[in-house]
């Protein structure tokens, strides 16, 4: 029987058909599974395969002064980036692109490191590219797969160094910052405020980045824009209206003695609005846009003058004689004296206390003075006695309750806490129990000793004097909640103190800084801060009009030797603000007596020398601003 008998063939045919049907069934099931059951999964994979998200950076909100003049603006700029791809192709493209964007080998590695951190986002190669570079790259676009050039608003500060410490600057968000909740939503390479208002109000200035999708080919070339509907437009940052008076700010920057270090702070005493905030030397915040040049960054950090440092809120100075108003206010509040009270011992150039002789700044002596006269003459001997009359415990108590140991809460980042003893136990701890005497009171009474204040804190105290005695937290945009701090002085006592300060300007230590043709009365107080490292620092804090103050201005100039030299600066600022002819003031010859408070005295034998006596020198660069990220240069933005 042949094997090709029809009956046998039919049997095999059935088998063969079964195999065909079986195979087709398996394939149909496989396709059904992939195309119907798992369709959405593969649809998504297909999208992620070919769609690349491209962040649309939100323009930061503009910052304006109180009259709407621009402090920080956005100008058109371009960002050059590469679409994500595998590392080898990125490296190849970067190597080719490097000469055009001036990227060295280390720069390429930095870009690749960024690409590894966010493998699905375009990696920024050159932020803030100039137009020439962009057009050069555009011409060669075909040979650079995945090249992405997009307009990105660029921050610009028209007034540059004049407002540097006020507005701060922006920079790329760091890895550490991205770990914080506040910056959680920011993409890698996004910009955040690093200092000043930019940092303080980053949340509202920043806006929200949008995203668009482009379709790419398997080789990484952008083929086309994906459909419009999937684009999420960026939400621009909200504009920030500040209390700053830009004209005044500029004026301050102009008249601040060139080459000197110091700070000026102007404030409305009735509201706490900051009108001008200037710290010298400044820096160019524009230089930080798009990544700071490492050389510039090194220069800023290496400079003796520490330009990044905001001397209005980040430097502590011994308040010197400006402190005497605080002592006077304490004595008045406690009812110990009136403005006409004289001290038992008249000034003969010094005061014997215990086994020590405490000098007055004036070796000839001031004779017997009333409180008003003592304020005007800044007589140390009077205030030694007044301090002893108040007593150390009460003095510390009042100073603490008036906020000389706390931050003002100004809405700028990095404000440091003033130094002041919290109570007598401080001395116990410092010198040991019963190893110190009430002589510390004498130093404290004239603004020396264990007392170092920030400019903003001293201005806030004078604001209380200049207003109804209640503290108004200084602010640039939003006041912090009221502290409830008050001098608790009657209005006539405040008026009397102001009158005494007018006499400072008219006859006293700041004589000649004076009135502008008698138009307004400026009240103020000089101060000289001991500086063991060089010439003393000069203070002046004043307000005007004395009867109903509208502005309080504090200034400190490092190494100015004495406060009186600072007074004209302040009075000119006040004059400018109140619309008084300052040309006259600038012509006034400034004749001022020396106002040097005595050097801090070694109080007890065997106690550490004065240098270690917590006499704060000007700026403690190493101890301040740990939270602003200045310790290390920000990663260069590429």
């Amino acid at each position: 029987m042949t094997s090709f008998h029809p009956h046998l063939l039919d049997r095999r045919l059935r088998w063969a058909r079964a195999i065909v049907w079986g195979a087709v069934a398996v394939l149909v099931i496989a396709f059904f599974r992939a195309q119907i059951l798992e369709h959405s999964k593969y649809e998504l994979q297909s999208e992620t395969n070919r769609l690349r998200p491209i962040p649309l950076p939100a323009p930061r909100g503009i910052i304006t002064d109180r009259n709407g003049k621009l402090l920080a603006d956005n100008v058109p700029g371009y960002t050059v980036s590469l679409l994500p791809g595998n590392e080898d192709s990125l490296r190849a493209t970067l190597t080719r692109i490097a000469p055009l964007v001036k990227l060295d080998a280390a720069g390429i590695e930095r870009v690749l490191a960024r690409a590894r951190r966010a493998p699905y986002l375009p990696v920024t190669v050159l932020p803030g590219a100039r137009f020439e570079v962009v057009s050069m790259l555009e011409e060669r676009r075909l040979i650079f797969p995945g090249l992405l050039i997009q307009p990105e608003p660029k921050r610009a500060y028209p007034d540059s160094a004049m407002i540097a410490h006020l507005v701060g600057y922006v920079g790329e968000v760091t890895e550490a910052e991205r770990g914080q909740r506040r910056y959680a939503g920011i993409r890698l390479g996004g910009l955040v405020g690093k200092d000043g208002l930019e940092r303080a109000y980053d949340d509202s200035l920043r806006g929200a980045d949008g995203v668009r999708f482009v379709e790419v080919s398997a080789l990484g070339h952008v083929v086309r824009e994906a459909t419009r509907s999937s684009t999420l437009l960026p939400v621009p940052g909200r504009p920030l209206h500040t209390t700053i008076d830009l004209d005044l700010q500029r004026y301050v920057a102009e008249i601040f003695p060139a080459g000197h270090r110091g700070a000026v702070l102007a404030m409305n005493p009735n509201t706490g609005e900051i009108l001008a905030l200037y710290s010298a030397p400044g820096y160019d915040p524009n230089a930080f846009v798009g990544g700071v040049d490492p050389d510039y960054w090194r220069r800023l950090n290496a400079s003796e003058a520490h330009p990044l440092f905001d001397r209005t809120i980040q430097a502590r100075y011994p308040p010197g004689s400006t402190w005497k108003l605080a002592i006077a206010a304490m004595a008045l509040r406690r009812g110990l004296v009136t403005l006409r009270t004289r001290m038992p011992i008249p000034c003969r150039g010094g005061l014997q206390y215990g086994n020590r002789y405490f000098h007055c700044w004036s070796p000839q002596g001031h004779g017997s003075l009333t409180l008003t006269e003592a304020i005007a003459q800044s007589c140390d001997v009077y205030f030694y006695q007044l301090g002893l009359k108040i007593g150390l415990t009460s003095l510390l108590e009042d100073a603490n309750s008036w906020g000389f140991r706390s931050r003002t809460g100004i809405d700028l980042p990095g404000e440091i806490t003033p130094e002041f003893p919290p109570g007598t136990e401080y001395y116990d701890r410092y010198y040991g129990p019963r190893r110190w005497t009430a002589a510390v009171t004498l130093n404290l009474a004239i603004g020396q000793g264990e007392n170092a204040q920030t400019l903003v804190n001293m201005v806030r105290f004078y604001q209380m004097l200049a207003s109804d005695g209640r503290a108004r937290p200084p602010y640039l945009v939003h006041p912090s909640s009221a502290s409830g701090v008050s001098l608790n002085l009657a209005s006539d006592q405040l008026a009397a103190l102001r009158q005494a300060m007018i006499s400072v300007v008219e006859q006293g230590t700041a004589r000649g800084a004076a009135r502008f043709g008698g138009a307004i009365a400026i009240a103020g107080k000089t101060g000289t801060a001991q500086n063991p490292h060089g010439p003393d620092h000069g203070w002046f804090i004043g307000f005007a009009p004395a009867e109903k103050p509208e502005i309080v201005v504090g200034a400190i100039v490092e190494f100015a030797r004495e406060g009186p030299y600072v007074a004209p600066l302040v009075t000119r600022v006040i004059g400018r603000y109140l619309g008084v002819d300052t040309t006259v003031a600038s012509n006034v010859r400034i004749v001022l007596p020396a106002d040097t408070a005595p050097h801090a005295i070694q109080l007890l034998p065997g106690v550490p020398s004065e240098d270690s006596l917590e006499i704060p020198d000007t700026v403690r660069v190493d101890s301040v601003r740990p939270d602003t990220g200045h310790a290390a240069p920000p990663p260069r933005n590429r």
Partner: protein
Amino acid sequence: MRPPLREIDKPLVGVVVALAAYGLATLYSAGQTDASTFVTTLWHKQLVWLAIGAVAAVLMFRVSPRLLEWATPYAYTVGVVVLLFTLVLGRGAASVATERSWLSIAGLRLGEPSELAKLAVILMLARWLAARREAPVTLRELVAPGALVAVPFLLVALQPDLGSALVFISILFAMLFWAGTKPQLLLLLGSPVIGLVLAFSTVAWGLWIVVLVGLLVWWRPYVWEGFSVMLANVVMGVIAVPFWRRLAPYQQNRLLAFLNPQEDPRATGWHVIQSKIAIGSGGLLGHGFTHGPQKRLAFLPAQFTDFIFAVVGEELGFVGVLVALALFAALLLILLRIARRATDAYSSLCVFGVTGLVFTHIVENVGMTVNVLPITGIPLPFFSYGGSFLLVCSVAVGIALRVAWESRQSGYAVL
């Protein structure tokens, strides 16, 4: 007697024309990418090949099976010689430069001889098997057909093109089956391959040996047969690992990628993943003809040859796939019907061999695009671009048409 064209088997012609049209349209779409490549105009060439194929099919329709049977040994000899030449002079295909599967003379690429050799092997096996009056019942009787297949198999495997080589094995088994060989015998013949695959797990291999011993005891072949089968399995188990090391890296990767495509998606698994993404994203109705994004953006590799079926899946969806599979199934069933009604054993075996060839290509090619089977570079009949295989398919169809006409002449009624 010359067969008139009007007595041609119309269902077969209809299905083949439909498949050729579908395939040409898909190839046209495969060329519609965002960045134009040489693929864009490839369908013109395929159209020419289709015309050549049509002429070839008509010519084969005119050739009597007797003449074909007479010419078979010569065709086989030519096929083997050409394969030898290819091995010595061959060029790699575009993607795998170390592969010598193309024959070119004076820079002119003449095609892939392995495709033509498949046809030659089918004819030769048909002739040998038809010449015997009874089906093979012992392993010894399988040595000769085995050798007939082994020669081209080895020559192709050495190119190295294991995927195409395995098609010869599939043809051998199909034709032995159709010749009436008992399934037990086929299983014993194939058992060394199973042993080879299972050798990668000692436990599985041990179990397989136990099962094999049981089968041998049950089926009671000749002692020496049982002994050689056991020996072959043990040897396979031993040489499996060295054999694995001998495989070219791309062959290893293809097998590994089949097992786990996600392992290294950019390298070995890329093809499968991209293909599956394209098919899966197609859904029920697809992205629309020529609009498949994966294909357009060049994510889909070899979209005009090996992975052309993924274009169908992506653009025409599950419905398009069903239509294609239905056409393929119809083709296979028609061929089976012709093989069944053939007037003589040689014709019947020829047509069944062709059926096995087409079946293998369809299942393997379509199966790999959805990761049901490992990737091998064998083309999809009537879809993949390539003249050699299209010509082979056309000639095969021509033979089947002639066989169908012969049986119709001898009294089989047309359904």
